[in-house]
């Protein structure tokens, strides 16, 4: 049977759906029986979601102005 350590090592492949069907079934079976690994998987997903939302850097105003000018210059209204 798949050990907890092995499951943890492959958790990203499972989450990202980069796993063979056979492996997937093994993981699911393990998760069904193991609360610690179920929690780990949930925590790893939460960690990824946190990293995704962390440091959401907004576009600086000066950059927006500059790009709008470039945009108007290079992609003028059609027919004009």
């Amino acid at each position, binding site marked *: 049977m798949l*050990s*907890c*350590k*092995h499951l*943890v*090592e*492959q*958790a*990203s*492949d499972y*989450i*990202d759906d*980069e796993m063979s069907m056979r492996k997937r079934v093994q993981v699911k079976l393990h998760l069904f029986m193991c*609360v*610690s*690994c179920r*929690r*780990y998987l949930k*925590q*790893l*997903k*939460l*960690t*990824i*979601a*946190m*990293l*995704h*939302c*962390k*440091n*959401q*850097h*907004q*576009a*600086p105003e000066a*950059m*927006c102005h*500059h*790009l*709008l000018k*470039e*945009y*108007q210059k*290079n*992609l*003028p*209204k*059609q027919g004009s």
Partner: protein
Amino acid sequence: MNKTGVSTEEALPDERELTQRLISNDQQLFMTVVKAWHPSLYSVAAAIVGHSIADEVVQEAWVSVIKALPKFEGRSALKTWVTRIVANEAKNRYRKESRSVSLESVDENWATDSRLVSDPRFDSSGHWNQRNPAWDMGSPDELLSAQELQDCVDKHLARLPEQQRYIMELRDAGGMDMEEICNILEVSSSNARVLLHRARDRIQQVVAKFQRTGEC
């Protein structure tokens, strides 16, 4: 689209319409796109060239995008295409500034050495030594609003081996495809997957420890 992430792009029209309207001078839409995509484009640039010139790199990349847009063939999603241009621009800048560490010098050993090192979380048969406790903070918002925890995460992000951090930032903060990341970093996909997981697992452990002990 990133499966795990929160999308800020729901208001944008579908691919075809998006490209069409951007080519035909929809200034308002253009600004919406620039703003909506900035956090992930910035993450991609920052992962490669660092934070100090990441905005600049994104801006330069957008100028290239504007010029190339009428020739965009739609073989990939527009955002994928723009992200690739940002990454290439960042890579060029990185080369020009000729920093000491090469992006290509991924230590291939990182991908294989983990199994030899024992992991204190598990016993010799690979079972958890202690039952993995549930977390008190159960949502990204709760985690993000705990400032002490975020400082701790930042500290550990900075300590990750560079390649691990690049891959995780490109993937999880920048939302890039793994295939694109492998092209940019010139690393095999199996190694990239191992490095990505190692970085995520490390940060999971940092958060877990903080939840358990309140300490970094």
